[in-house]
Each structure stands twice: as structure tokens, then as C-alpha cells.
């Protein structure tokens, strides 16, 4: 399979540097800077999983921690990891990935026959049945258990080692998007001991997928400059690939840093992951926002994606996940996606706006690109 959806324009990917990986046993190629999700989309993969109860097919809808569907088993043997989101897995040479549900495979799943009985299985149906005869419950349970779970836990001892650091700082900044970066810079310039952590592989947050400019400078180069300044301070610790996972009493936070996962190797010296137990005097949460999915019938089928994710795949990774697009929105932001999609040389069929008269600056800027800003779809 070739990278049919690959563009030549990804700001943070290098299309000349090819990376081989496998998905459900199939050989595929991505490029340096890809996540597993962007590489799968580049290869035209639509179905990445099956839903838990009815085995409905599921596609990628997000581009980060919010992704609900693209849950993968990564690696094999003792070093396998269950339940990683493809949107958060950095691609490396030889990466092995597999969908966690679907039998015999994710595209044709026999379990989906449970969908036919869906009406018999409302939420909590198991409380109302499987009670008689009493002695059969353990048998029922055996089959219920088999149907549950996502990926598989490893069965061999973990080959890697882990460590932890007890950290102390004046200011902890969680999130290295524009807000977090500037906050960290100001604190650092004032002489404070600063730690700035971000779950992604590189700092910049939303700016990594932005084609806008800041202070007359491309957003991504503004980020590069700011990160370089932060790294020049001896009183600043920068922690990429580091997820803050808990905020405990008296400003104690846990941060997990993934040190070698993106290399796809077991660390022969040092640790695979490091726990930072941070005691901060002040904490700045600059974690940004997730786009909220719109609610409509069938919004879970493959091909439905968040507008911000579409833009991110185009601008950051150089992947246009499809050919023809309909945008459904309640605000101005999606119009940027329409412009991005159009720039990628793909067709925007319509923008469906729930507002009667959208009028923002960006709304008008898309006209002339072959779609009207308030197309109505026929409900039949």
C-alpha cells in the first residue's frame, strides 16, 4: 500500500526520510515526524478498531490524547504495550501495530453479529439477566469476560527498567503551547526555577499545526526561537514526551516522561520511562483545549473526524485524510479547516453551519474556493 494521502507540505515531517512499519501484519511506510495515526491515514487506512459491545467499525477521529478509537497493541513479545493511542505513538523504524479488537480481523468482524441483537442489550442489560439457573453464572461470566478488554497485557517479564526523580521547582508549567511557553520564559527570566512539561514529542502545542504568524514570524519558527531561549537557561528543565497525570495535595504533581518509547528499542542504559515527582511552589496549567465532538446519528463511523484534527494532519504531518469533505460546525474555527483542505488540493463539498448567519472574518475568506459558507444538506 502506498501513501496515497501524503502531501508534500507537512511542516513537521520529512517526506524524504521513509520509515517502515507494520499494521495488522501489513507492511507500510510513513515518514520521519509521523505519528502512527498520521502514517495510517497517509496509507489510506479507514477502519482502525471495533467498538466494545456491538463491534461497530471505528476510524481515527482525533490527533492526540482525546482519540477514542485508534487504540493499538504496539510491539510484540515481552516489550509489547497494550492500548496505546495511534495518535500519540511516534513512528519508528520497524514499529509493529495491531488493532485490539476484531475477529478474524478488524475489517470483517464476526463479533459484529452482536449488533443484530443490539436492542436486546441496553445499558446494564447484564444486571437483568444471566441469573437463572444460578449455577450457570460462572459459565456466562466466562464468555462475558472473553468479550471484554482491549489489548493484551504482556505475559513475559518486562525487559526494561524505570526510574524516578524527586523534583522541586518554583514554577511548574504543564503544557508547552503558546501560553505555557511564554509563561515559562517569563518565569525563567525572573530567575525562578522552572520545569515545563508537555506530553508531545516537541514543544509548541497548537502552533505546530498552525500556518499563522506571530509577531510577523511563522508560528513554528517563533516556537523554535522560544524553545531555544528556554533551553539556554540553567534554571529551566524542559520535559518533552512528559505527561502530567496527577495533581495531589500541596502542589505535588506526578509527571511521566517517556524516554525511549519513540526509539522503539529497549534502553540498555538508563530507563525506558521516568517518573518525575514534582513539588512546585506555583503551578501553571496551560493544557490547551480539545475540540468537542458534535452529536449526530452515526457520528462514530469511519470517516468522521474533528475539524481541528483534519487541519493538524494537513499542516503538521502533511496528510490529507480523504478526498471530499463536508464540514459541520457551530463556530468559525472550522472555516480554517476548509481553507486548509482546499489548499491541500481537495474538494470541500459543503460547510454546514448551525448558525443562521455566520459572519466572522475567516468565514468570508473561504468563498471562491468552490463551496459556499452556509450550504444546507438535504435531510433525506
Amino acid at each position: 500500500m502506498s501513501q496515497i494521502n501524503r502531501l508534500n507540505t507537512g511542516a513537521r515531517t520529512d517526506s524524504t526520510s521513509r520509515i517502515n512499519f507494520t499494521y495488522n501484519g501489513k507492511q507500510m511506510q510513513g515518514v520521519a515526524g509521523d505519528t502512527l495515526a498520521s502514517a495510517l491515514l497517509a496509507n489510506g487506512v479507514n477502519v482502525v478498531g471495533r467498538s466494545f459491545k456491538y463491534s461497530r467499525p471505528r476510524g481515527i477521529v482525533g490527533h492526540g490524547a482525546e482519540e477514542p478509537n485508534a487504540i493499538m497493541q504496539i510491539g510484540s513479545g515481552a516489550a509489547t504495550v497494550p492500548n496505546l493511542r495511534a495518535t500519540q505513538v511516534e513512528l519508528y523504524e520497524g514499529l509493529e501495530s495491531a488493532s485490539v479488537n476484531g475477529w478474524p480481523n478488524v475489517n470483517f468482524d464476526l463479533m459484529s453479529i452482536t449488533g443484530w441483537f443490539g436492542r436486546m442489550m441496553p445499558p446494564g442489560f447484564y444486571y437483568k439477566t444471566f441469573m437463572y439457573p444460578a449455577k450457570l453464572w460462572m459459565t456466562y461470566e466466562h464468555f462475558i469476560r472473553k468479550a471484554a478488554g482491549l489489548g493484551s497485557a504482556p505475559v513475559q517479564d518486562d525487559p526494561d527498567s524505570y526510574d524516578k526523580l524527586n523534583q522541586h521547582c518554583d514554577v511548574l508549567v504543564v503544557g508547552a503551547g503558546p501560553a505555557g511557553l511564554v509563561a515559562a520564559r517569563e518565569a525563567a527570566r525572573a530567575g525562578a526555577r522552572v520545569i515545563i512539561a508537555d506530553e508531545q514529542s516537541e514543544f509548541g502545542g497548537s502552533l505546530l499545526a498552525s500556518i499563522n504568524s506571530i509577531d510577523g514570524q511563522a508560528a513554528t519558527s517563533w516556537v523554535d526561537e522560544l524553545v531555544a531561549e528556554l533551553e539556554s537557561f540553567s534554571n529551566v528543565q524542559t520535559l518533552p514526551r512528559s505527561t502530567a497525570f496527577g495533581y495531589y495535595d500541596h502542589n505535588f504533581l506526578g509527571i511521566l516522561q517517556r524516554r525511549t518509547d519513540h526509539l522503539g528499542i529497549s534502553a540498555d542504559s538508563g530507563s525506558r520511562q521516568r517518573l518525575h515527582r514534582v513539588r512546585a511552589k506555583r503551578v501553571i496549567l496551560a493544557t490547551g483545549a480539545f475540540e468537542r465532538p458534535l452529536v449526530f446519528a452515526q457520528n462514530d463511523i469511519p470517516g468522521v473526524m474533528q475539524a481541528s484534527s483534519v487541519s493538524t494532519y494537513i499542516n503538521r504531518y502533511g496528510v490529507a485524510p480523504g478526498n471530499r469533505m463536508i464540514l459541520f460546525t457551530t463556530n468559525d474555527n472550522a472555516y480554517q479547516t476548509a481553507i486548509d483542505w482546499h489548499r491541500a488540493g481537495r474538494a470541500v463539498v459543503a460547510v454546514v453551519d448551525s448558525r443562521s448567519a455566520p459572519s466572522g472574518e475567516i468565514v468570508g475568506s473561504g468563498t471562491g474556493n468552490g463551496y459556499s459558507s452556509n450550504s444546507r444538506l438535504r435531510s433525506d
Partner: protein
Amino acid sequence: MKKYSGFSLFKNALSYHENWQKLWRSPKPKDYYDVIVVGGGGHGLATAYYLAKVHGITKVAVIEKGYLGGGNTARNTTIIRSNYLWDEAAQLYELSLKLWEGLSQELNYNVMFSQRGVLNLGHNLQDMRDIERRVNANRLNGIDGEVVTPERVKEIAPLINISKDCRYPILGASWQPRGGTARHDAVAWGYARGADALGVDLIQETEVIGIRRKNGSVVGVETTQGFIGTRKVACVTAGNSGVVAAMAGLRLPVESRPLQALVSEPVKPCLDTVVMSNAVHGYISQSDKGDLVIGAGVDGYNGYGQRGSFHVIEHTLQAICELFPAFSRVRMNRQWGGVVDTCPDACPIISKTSVDGLYFNCGWGTGGFKATPGSGYVFADTVANDHPHPLAAAFNVDRFNTGALIDEHGAAGVAH
């Protein structure tokens, strides 16, 4: 109450599940009840259910400040077993286990009681001596149990590490095959539905803020919905027992502590039993949804925060990885705490008090869930007759003045 069955599921599917009977009513509080149960968790709801079912006392209200089963019932690791050391405790928990065995059918509500067995590991010679003593005591009480070898442990839980070359090598275990887990929410909901059907008023989002007394006897409770009269108040407010006791001018020998638990992301079945270890301070099972459900010891100090300290779960996960080295790559999904009230002897209080008509069922520490049916059964009996049920007599609060403590620290699973 309309019965649940495969047929009722089918019938309701035809009407798109829009005609199911509500599990329980949401009544306005009456002016007077024969008994008011304070606290709508598993124990409180079970108490109300057995008051109505066994003793015919149906003019009962359960008053809950939050929602039914929203406290420790929904926050525990759902382990059920009865292998306690002392006769008094073992018999109480065994009554409970027997009730568990028929509970889904009794309540016509599947509480998913799964008798997958419970292992209590021993890591040194003293542990093994304690295990042998406890198993022998259990068998004298007619409770199933056996001492098993590390090899047998490995058969029951294949991913466990029985190598001698680790900090806490497994030397053996006690094994109670009838133990297991249940679905915690279902227990509360099943009892609530059963009690409601018998006429009990379940009053949610109503907090008891005072206990009115006259001449040393209870005459009613003050609530956020006003005064409600009664001659009997049965307090089942785990975690907050000290606070409720203070409303009646009483002190209890309990201290409230956070107890934490956490679950992993769901994985395919890999652990079909419950594994507990006192020495390394952790216990683990896998839910029917696939989550690894892991519990810790109580936090080291009094607290009413439903969260707890990070280093406690850190310590517990070290223990779990020590027992199951393969699990170190499985990621944890959620972490939470519940507030338990702990007694100095790690046994509960099921008791009348010095205030006439005021009863307490508290102090279950880390092990209340498993006792839910038995606790409700004997407490209902104690309240109905104003006299301790034979199995509850030893758990009178007087024991802290007479000295007749029942020291279950060894069998209680984790330190409290």
C-alpha cells in the same frame, strides 16, 4: 416489582426499552418512620431491605446525602471472602458469603457475584505460620480454605512470579475457592430495588444534620428537608460515622482514613482470581470489563479527602509489579480514594449505643463491601429487636471498654 428475566429483556426491546419500571421511587419524606436508616450505601440499603423482608418493618426511610451507593460501595475493590481468624469475625463474614451465594436470585438482580477464589500470599515463614493457623481456624468454623504451594499459586494465577530470587518470594498462600468479587453498583441497586418494592422510602440528596433526643432517647432526625420523627435511628455512614456520632454527643473508637484504589486500562483476561498480599500491601483482580483492579493500604493519617497520597499507590504498584512483573507495562487509568472508618482491632462495630434508639454499624475499615449482606442482616435484626443478633453481640461498642477486642489485623488484608 416487575421481574427481570431474558423474556422481560426481549419484551422491553420491542418497545425500545422505554417502558421499564423505575428501579425505585423518589418519595417525599413522611413525618414519621418506624426506623430511619442514615446512609444509603450497600450496608444501609441491605439493612432497610432485611428490616422489611425479615422483620416486616416496612415504614422505613433510608436517608442519603448524596446518591445511593455513591460512597464506599462504589469505591472499593469488591473482594469477597470469609477467611477471618477469630470465630466471631469468621462467622459473621461466612453468613455474608452464604447470603452472597444466593443474592442475585434473592434480589432478582444480577450482582455478578463471581466465585473465582481468593489467594492470600505468604512471603516468609511467619506469614506461612499465620496462614496455616488461619486456615485451620477457618476449617473448624466450616469455612472452606486450604494452604497451597507456590506451584499451585502459579497454576491459579499463571502470570505470578514465584521465583525465589526476589524481595518478597512467594512461599505459599491460603486459598478460599468460594471467595471472589461482585459488581459493586449492582449490589447497591439490587438492595435498593428490593427495599423499595417492600415499601421502604429511599430519600436521596438529603443530609441528616442533627439527631434530636428527648430524655436520652431518640425522637427524630433533622435533615436538609426538615425534621423527620422516629424512635429508631440506624447509622450506617462509613467514613463519616464519627461525624454522625458527634451529632448525638457520642464519641466512637473509630478514625477516618482515606483508602485508595486504582484500575488499569481494560486488557484481555489474564488474571482469573483475586490475589492479596499483606506483606507487600496490595491486592489485585481483573474485572469482567478487563480492568486490573488494584487496592492499597490506608493512608497514614486521619482524613476525609476522597483522594489520598501519591506515595501510597506508588508503593502498592511496586508491590504489584513485584508479584506480576509482566504488568509493569500495563498503564493505570484511574485512581481514587474512599474514606473508611477504622477500629483499633480491625473489626466492625454493630451495636446499640448509650442513647436509647440510636444504633451504629461502622468501623468496617478496609473490608466492608464483602460483609454487605451479612452486616445488613444482623444489623436489621439488632435494630428490630433492640437486642444484638447473636452474630453481632461480639461487635458491641462496649468491647473497647471491657477489653474483649477481636484482633483481626492479620486477616484484615491490609493494615488499618
